[in-house]
């Protein structure tokens, strides 16, 4: 990225370099006596523990432990009630051979590919628009945030009705413009776009809030310096705002990818995975396997496959961040 701010770029780069996640040596004082330094190390270790335990205990008991249990269940044939039968990796082998598995992963990925750019660009535009001084700014922010706080039960009712093929508002407007609107959630090729549209609408406010918080932490001196250098609004966006927003952007992208792979509520509430399985996603399949087909073993196996995929994508993200995320 070319910079119009030669003074700040090396500073940012230097900060990014020292900011890596690697466990660098603790700021110890090795020049003390052996006893002093050991007491110090123990004290430091206790400090670290004091900061970590409040979160480590609940995460271990209520996320990691059940997750390991799920791995154990995935090696069994189990309907939640009768005793478990050990089947080894049969559940995994069965899933890999089943074309439905590839289909639900494919649907999930197309959801992410459609959703992410839509919600990020929309959220960025809103954040930029609502970051400037204007009357009623807080009210407008509240309005755009309204869908975020609404449960999917309510949102799905509204969107099914907005996108109704016969008498829905959206097709009414399209008809007025001379366009023959599709059968949104009744047509297999449009069911996923419908879900993407409703999801992006619901989550715009979330992205807006994260990016607004990011925008407000940008030092205004940078803009003044850019203006002195003769940068126009577009140039300031590209060379100041976007690089300085990179931590917030990173956050939005990581969270959206993880949530995208876990997409479920809206599919469940809007289409139930139909028509003809065209909008069935991975978590929907996990849910159906567990609660509809009573196949907890297969469901747990699919969960683990999903988890490994999400993990891989996130690790790539976290490693890749060093190339483009700057911390001020």
């Amino acid at each position, binding site marked *: 990225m070319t910079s119009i701010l030669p003074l700040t770029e090396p500073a940012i780069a230097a900060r990014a370099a020292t900011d890596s996640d690697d466990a660098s040596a603790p700021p110890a004082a090795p020049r003390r006596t052996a006893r002093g330094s050991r007491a110090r190390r123990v004290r430091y270790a206790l*400090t670290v523990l004091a*900061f970590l335990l409040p979160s480590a205990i609940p995460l271990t008991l*209520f996320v990691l432990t059940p997750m390991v249990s799920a791995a154990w269940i995935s090696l069994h044939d189990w309907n939640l009630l009768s005793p478990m039968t050990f089947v080894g990796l049969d559940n995994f082998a069965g899933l890999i051979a089943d074309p439905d598995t590839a289909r639900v992963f494919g649907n999930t990925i197309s959801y992410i590919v459609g959703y992410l750019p839509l919600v990020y660009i929309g959220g960025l535009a809103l954040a930029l628009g609502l970051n400037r001084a204007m009357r009623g700014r807080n009210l407008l922010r509240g309005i755009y945030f309204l869908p975020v706080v609404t449960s999917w039960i309510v949102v799905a009712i509204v969107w099914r009705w907005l996108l109704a093929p016969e008498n829905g508002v959206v097709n009414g407007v399209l008809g007025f413009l001379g366009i023959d609107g599709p059968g949104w959630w009744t047509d297999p090729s449009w069911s996923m776009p419908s879900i993407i549209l409703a999801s992006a609408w619901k989550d715009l406010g979330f992205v807006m809030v994260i990016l607004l918080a990011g925008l407000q932490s940008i030092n205004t001196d940078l803009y003044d310096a850019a203006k002195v250098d003769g940068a126009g609004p577009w140039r300031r966006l590209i060379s100041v705002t976007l690089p300085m927003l990179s931590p917030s952007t990173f956050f939005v992208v990581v969270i959206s990818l993880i949530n995208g792979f876990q997409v479920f509520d809206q599919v469940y509430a809007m289409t139930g995975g139909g028509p003809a399985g065209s909008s069935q996603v991975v978590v929907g399949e996990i849910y159906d396997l567990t609660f509809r087909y009573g196949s907890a073993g297969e469901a747990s196996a699919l969960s683990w496959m999903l988890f490994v995929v999400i993990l891989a994508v996130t690790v790539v993200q976290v490693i890749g961040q060093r190339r483009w995320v700057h911390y001020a």
Partner: protein
Amino acid sequence: MREVSTRNRATRILIAGVLVVGGLAMMFPFVWTVVTSLTPGANLGSPIRLWPENPSLGAYETLFTERPFARVAMNSLMLAAITTIVQLFTSATAAYAFSRLPFRGRGIVFAVYLATMMIPLQVLIVPLFAQLRTFGLLNTYLGALLPTFATAFGIFLLRQAINQVPRELDEAATLDGAGHFRIFATIILPNIKPALATLTIFAFMGSWNSFLWPLIVLRDPTLQTLPIALAGLQGQYTTAWDVVMAGSVISVLPMLAIYLFAQKYIIQGVASSGIK
């Protein structure tokens, strides 16, 4: 000079116009929800109205007299408040460790934390249920609360914020003899108010709207939470849409109030941040 300022003005008005029109489009479904809640005997097939036909608060009355809606709302409020306070504490302390306390294996521990965020709730339901049954925590508020006490989401969010607090501030405090607990309380927390406000909203919202887990743990009707009661309404009355929509309106209002409150803090927090 003058031409530039007129063009600026036109741009500003255009942007404001687009934002307002977008806002109206955003509000429309909610206006419809409110209108439906005020229309006795409303059904989804009826034509779209922006004003109720025979406006009445009957649906709201039904909720509070014929249904234990006040109790249910209190349950939701209490669970959400406790979840939020505990999550703010566990997230802030962990985020501080991951940002400011280097230790061997920190990268790996952080990766494990992040990994917990990637596990879909649906995956954990069966083992968690069995686990809480063993501890005798089914049908208790504690059982509903415990799994919500720490989230990698909050830790990740606050760590991003703490990473942006200049280290020079900590170093200055260290020279003044402050230890990590003091730096955390007096330097870091005041400087990440926007992120804390953001987490407050999301922790509260997550608990307030959560459906699957409370449904499984809290079987006793007096322990139920709002979304479950809402879902129950849809079956009970062969879907009296005015009552469902009234419940929806009530379920959205507190969230909106919290957002408007926390939004103020986001702005204040930035104004009072250490370095400008």
